[in-house]
Every structure is written in structure tokens, then in C-alpha cells.
């Protein structure tokens, strides 16, 4: 038996090899490794990890089943709380959720809950283990807008309760950020995302792609003309922000959304697809979140030298620790405490560099993080041919502006109750990034569950 204070190491692709391919970085546990790691769990009575999980998966329960080798049982425990274990096991920030609270973490490394969840989820996908469908049908039509984690979860839960559910998606593929944002090397699209969604299809949920709610049809029309009795809005927060500095419209400046969409959704990295991507040779990614790491690591795989330009220090990087670690291993260069002032443009209108200024950290601001301030006379130029802006996103106003009586707040987020997703408009519920602003997969999933519960209560009392 290995050191109980340490996690069973997970196999990963070698950094030098993976920096040149789009295959998944982390290879995950096999059954033997998973069962080994599971034995590290103390099965605490008052399990702190559960409180750290936004959807309160009964973690010691599922790990106990893994220990015994009853993976199918383990899957059933997880699926009572989570619809997308293979996804969450890969992309959840476990280090600041369940694993942060794990008792094992006090003296040594916490139990690798995320990797165990991923193993269980993948086992269920490989062995085609299905969630239980509805016992009886309910004669109510519900529309779900958006096929990201919030929408998919809400649709799945409602279908399990017997509702007649249709999901409307604006893009030509299902999955939201899971297909257009998060890259293949972190979250395989065919092997994982499509299969998880396939399970929701098998529950009887109908999907209509290429429908932009607010343009192709409005929410009011869905209710009045198409007979939907309740609506769940899970339309995400997809609107990219730019800095508003000179040169930002030059050729070679992208939003992270455009860069990632071209690569992930349109598969520009594969030359057999028509969509092009001017990937760049020397790329600056502005920002420090998960999205910035994904854009940087995508550019690296497309052959570029990549710099992350972030105005605070390493400690404040909002990205997951694992992503920063992977990015460094792969050779991404971090220019911290640095902020762009201007994008320099050549005579053809293309990016030739960026003028940046050095920053230092001052007093904490409203967010509690120390505010970055410019160091006078510290401007200098860096030579790049591509700049990717990854400054965050906000909800698209399209739905709110075309729906009567749907209230939004200052940040353009739809206002909805946390426990049931109820909005200011009767029969309309919402959750996920559309309500919270850009957040996480698991929070969106939790909101989808709450919305399903809210809709069930609403329709049961109707």
C-alpha cells in the first residue's frame, strides 16, 4: 500500500507531447487505481466534503461503492444529485469545493474526489448505464432555452418527472460552453459531452437546434402559440467584453470566445473543416481566468509562443490551480502584474505588438483582492502578432429585450429566485450563467435542478 497521505497519482500525457496535440491531457484513473484511491476515504460521519459540493453529492456513499468495486452503484449515488459526472469530474474546481474541505487534506493530500467522480461517470458512459426514466408521463409541455449544463440538467430532471420537454438551442451543436468554449484536450466532445447529452435524449427530451429565442420565436409566442406551460431560461453569459483601448479592432485581435469557438465548435484546428483560424505565431492572451488558460493552451497547440498578460499577481489568478499548473508545464509564459495600454498595428491593419504597463498591488478593492495600480513610467512594448482578449463575458440581452415583464439587473443578468429559479414573469424560470453571470458548470447544473423543481411545483399546483 502506498503512502496514505498522498493521492494515487493520475496518469497524464507528457507535457512536451501534449503541447502539440488536442488529445485529453489527463488520462484519469483505471478501476484498480480508483479503488486504491477510494480506500483513502475515511467515510466521515459528518462529511465536510458534502457541504463543499454545490449540489451536495453524497460523496462518502459513492466512494464506499467504488471501494467495493460496485461502480454501477456508485454511479446511482452520484446521479441522484448530478446529471453530468463525467463533465464535472473533469472541469469542477474541486480544490476550492469538496476537496478543500476533505479531512484527509489536513495532514496530507485530500481524497481525489474529482478523479473518482470522473472514473465513475466514464464507467457509466462506457457501460451504457442509464439514468432511470419517468414512471408515468405528465401531460405538460415545458420549453428549455439553451443546451448548456443548466438547460441540460433542467431538461433531464423534468423528463425524469414525466414532463414533455423540448430544448431550444441557438447554435448547431448541443452543450453550450461545453462544446464551444472548453477545449477538447480538457473535455472530449464525442466521448463525453455528446454521450452525456445522449442520455438526456434517451429520457425522451426533444432537441431543436438552430432556434434563437427572441429572433426565431419569442418566449411569449412559445407560451401563447406553441402551448408551452412553463419555460426555463439557461441561455448563459456569452457576450464578450473588450478593453476599449486603441488598436483593438485590428486584424489579429480576437475575443477568447471567437478564438475558442473557431477551434472547438468549428474545428478550425483540423484542416478538413472549412472554418479558418489565423492562429498566430506569438500570442498574448489578456486575462487570467479559466477562459484565458484555455485560449492560451489552444494557441500553444496551434504552434504559437504564448504569453498570459494579467494585471494582478499569480495569487489572484482566477483560473483553477490545475489549469495554471498544466499551462506552465506546457510552456505558457506568464507576464503578471502587466496591463495592456494599446495594441500596435502595422500598415496592413494587422497586430504587430502591444504597449503594456507594469502594475503593483495596492489596497484591497470591493472584491477583497488587492487593487492593481499602474507604476508610473513603466510602459514598454512587446512584440506579438495576435492578441486574445479574455476579460469576461456578460449575458446576451436578446431574450430579456424580447420578453415582456422579464426583469434584469444592472449587470444584464436575469433576476431569479435561487431556490426555484422563478423570474419576475409567471411561468418563466431561469438559472445558470444567465442569472449569475459567468460562473461554473456545477453551479449552472445546480440551478438547472432548482429550476426543474420550481417548474414541477408550479405545474403541480396549476
Amino acid at each position, binding site marked *: 500500500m502506498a503512502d496514505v497521505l498522498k493521492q494515487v497519482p493520475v496518469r497524464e500525457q507528457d507535457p512536451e507531447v501534449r503541447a502539440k496535440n488536442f488529445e485529453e491531457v489527463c488520462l484519469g484513473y483505471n478501476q484498480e487505481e480508483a479503488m486504491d484511491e477510494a480506500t483513502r476515504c475515511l467515510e466521515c460521519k459528518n462529511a465536510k466534503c458534502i457541504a463543499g459540493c454545490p449540489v451536495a453529492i453524497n460523496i462518502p456513499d459513492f466512494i464506499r461503492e467504488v471501494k467495493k468495486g460496485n461502480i454501477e452503484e456508485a454511479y446511482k449515488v452520484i446521479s441522484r444529485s448530478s446529471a453530468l459526472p463525467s463533465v464535472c469530474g473533469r472541469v469542477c474546481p474541486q480544490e476550492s469545493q469538496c476537496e478543500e474541505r476533505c479531512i484527509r487534506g489536513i495532514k496530507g493530500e485530500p481524497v481525489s474526489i474529482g478523479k473518482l467522480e470522473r472514473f465513475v461517470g466514464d464507467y457509466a458512459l462506457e457501460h451504457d448505464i442509464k439514468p432511470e426514466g419517468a414512471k408515468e408521463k405528465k401531460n405538460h409541455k415545458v420549453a428549455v432555452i439553451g443546451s448548456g449544463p443548466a438547460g441540460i440538467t433542467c431538461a433531464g430532471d423534468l423528463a425524469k418527472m414525466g414532463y414533455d420537454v423540448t430544448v431550444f438551442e441557438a447554435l448547431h451543436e448541443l452543450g453550450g460552453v461545453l462544446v*464551444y468554449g472548453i477545449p477538447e484536450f480538457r473535455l472530449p466532445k464525442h466521448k463525453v459531452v455528446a454521450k452525456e447529452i445522449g442520455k438526456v435524449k434517451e429520457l425522451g427530451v426533444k432537441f431543436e437546434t438552430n*432556434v434563437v429565442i427572441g*429572433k426565431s420565436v419569442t418566449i411569449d409566442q412559445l407560451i401563447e402559440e406553441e402551448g408551452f406551460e412553463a419555460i426555463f431560461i439557461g441561455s448563459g453569459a456569452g457576450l464578450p467584453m473588450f478593453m476599449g483601448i486603441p488598436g483593438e479592432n485590428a486584424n489579429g485581435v480576437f475575443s477568447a470566445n471567437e478564438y475558442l*469557438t473557431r477551434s472547438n465548435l*468549428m474545428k478550425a484546428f483540423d484542416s*478538413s473543416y472549412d472554418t479558418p483560424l489565423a492562429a498566430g505565431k506569438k500570442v498574448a492572451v489578456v486575462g487570467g481566468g479559466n477562459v484565458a488558460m484555455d485560449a492560451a493552451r489552444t494557441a500553444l497547440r496551434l504552434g504559437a509562443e504564448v504569453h498570459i498578460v494579467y494585471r494582478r499577481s499569480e495569487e489572484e489568478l482566477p483560473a483553477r490551480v490545475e489549469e495554471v499548473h498544466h499551462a506552465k508545464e506546457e510552456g505558457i509564459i506568464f507576464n503578471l502584474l502587466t496591463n495592456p495600454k494599446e495594441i500596435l498595428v502595422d500598415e496592413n491593419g494587422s497586430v504587430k505588438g502591444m504597449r503594456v504597463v507594469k502594475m503593483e498591488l495596492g489596497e484591497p478593492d470591493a472584491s477583497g483582492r488587492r487593487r492593481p495600480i499602474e507604476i508610473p513610467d513603466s510602459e514598454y512594448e512587446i512584440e506579438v502578432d495576435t492578441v486574445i482578449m479574455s476579460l469576461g463575458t456578460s449575458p446576451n440581452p*436578446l431574450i430579456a429585450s424580447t420578453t415582456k415583464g422579464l426583469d434584469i439587473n444592472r449587470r444584464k443578468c436575469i433576476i431569479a429566485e435561487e431556490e426555484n429559479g422563478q423570474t419576475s414573469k409567471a411561468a418563466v424560470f431561469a438559472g445558470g450563467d444567465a442569472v449569475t453571470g459567468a460562473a461554473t458548470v456545477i453551479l449552472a447544473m445546480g440551478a438547472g435542478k432548482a429550476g426543474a423543481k420550481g417548474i414541477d411545483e408550479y405545474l403541480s399546483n396549476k
Partner: protein
Amino acid sequence: MYKIVKAEKLADIIYLMDVHAPRVASHCEPGQFVIVKMDDKGERVPLTICDYDREAGTITIVFQAMGASTTRMAELKEGDSFRDFVGPLGCPSEFVHEDIEELKKKKMLFVAGGVGAAPVYPQVKWLHEHGIEADVIVGSKTKDLLILEKELESVSGNLYITTDDGSYGRSGMVTTVIEDLVKNEGKHYDVCVAIGPMIMMKFVCLLTKKLELPTIVSMNPIMVDGTGMCGACRLQVGDEVKFACVDGPEFDGHLVDFDQAMTRSRMYKTEEGRKALKLQEGDTHHGGCGVCGGDN
């Protein structure tokens, strides 16, 4: 899948198709566009809605085979299908929401260049159906490339056709015709709507600014999603940055920075050109020459 119920070649490399897309047909209005994707590997190609039949649930598109995707699209036949067809996207033309009586007092001039005749047609048709006759100028390189002449004739007030080489109608650019009409033929217009290649719209706007004729243009930048998600379509309009797919595609032409827009639309020229060339030459083109471009 979205079935093609009619496919027709209008002129050299210009194609018309009627596509069954009932959701789009039931809600679209003049000025809006769709995005089509022919198959798994195709690009998302934005195309203006050229006509619609709400009852039959069909949308008419007209496109020029320019690059990799549109050249492959040109091979589709009646009975084939598009994998994806999404819309209506963008905002309808402003006049759709104006008071009809007010609108009737205005004299409108439409200026179409090349395939621009396609997006101009539904607007003029809408006005005609609402009892308003607008004048239309259509410019084409040469007679053989002229499209939708008959259709436009049946809905326009005066229709002026001009060809660059003088092979049909008047001779010269559309700007010459505008100048002739306003300066020499005593016409007065309150609004001009210009749709065509960016370079044409730029020169029309330079002229109409001098003539103090308010001008609306329909911008066709490179797009990806068409729903406001990527910013690929951003334009400088006055002192604001606008996303053409959600804020447009129509803008006040006197405020648009055309030079920047044209530079931006050349973004993929070389790369796409190479792809187009690969498509034409198959395996005989090994790339690497770096200068062939191939996108005439």
C-alpha cells in the same frame, strides 16, 4: 435538415435557392439574414434573406460562390438539404417599424451593387406592398452578371440599371448614376439605402455625404455565430464599436469606418484562398508557394 426546394443558377457564380425553414419564414422581416451550414465540415455562412413565403415556409437566398464554403454550396441541388439554417438574425430594416403614413412622405432611393440586388429586393418589395414606390439603381460589372432584374422591375418605382462596361443600361458606376439623378435630372431623395460590396458602399457614402443625403448601408463583415457571442463582426460606427450581427446589419453609412471594415474582411483572404485553391486543384496543389492566394 433544411430541404432545398428550388435551386437555380442566376448568372456566372451566382446561385438562388429556396430552402424550407418554417421557423425562419414565419418571423423574418426585410433587412434580416440567416446563417447556413451545408454539412458537418462547412463554415457558418451568413446570407441575407432575399425573399420569404410564410405559407410555404420557405426562404430564398442568393449567393456568390466566392470561397471554400460557398463554392461547395453551389453544388447543392433541388432535393438536397442544408445541415443547419438559423435565423432570422439581425435587426429588420428601420422602416419596417416606422409609421406608414410618415414613410409615404419620404422619397427613398435604393442602390444595389452586384449580389446586393438580392438583399435590396425584399425591402423594395415590402415597400411596394405597403403602397410605397422606391427608386432603385442596380449596378453590375457586365450584363451577364445582372440578377433579379424582372423581380425588381415589378416592385420598384423607377429602376435604373448600369453596367461598368456599358454592356447594358447606363454605363458606369452606381455613384455616377446617383450624381446624374440628383444633380442633372432634378430628383430629390430623403433617404438612400446602399447594399453591395463594401468598396461600393464606401464610395456611395462619400458621395451622399456631399449631397447631404442620409444613407443606410447593410454591412457584411466576417461572422461566426451571428448571435453576439464572438465579436468577429465588430465595426467602428462613429465613436462606438458595434456588433453587426445583433446591432445591425444596417447602420448609418456616414458613420461607418469602411476602411477598417474592409481591412477586417480581408483577415482570412490568404488562408481561405489557399483552401479554395486546394478545392479546385485537389491533390495537385501542394501549397507552400505562399503567394498564389487563389482567391481572385
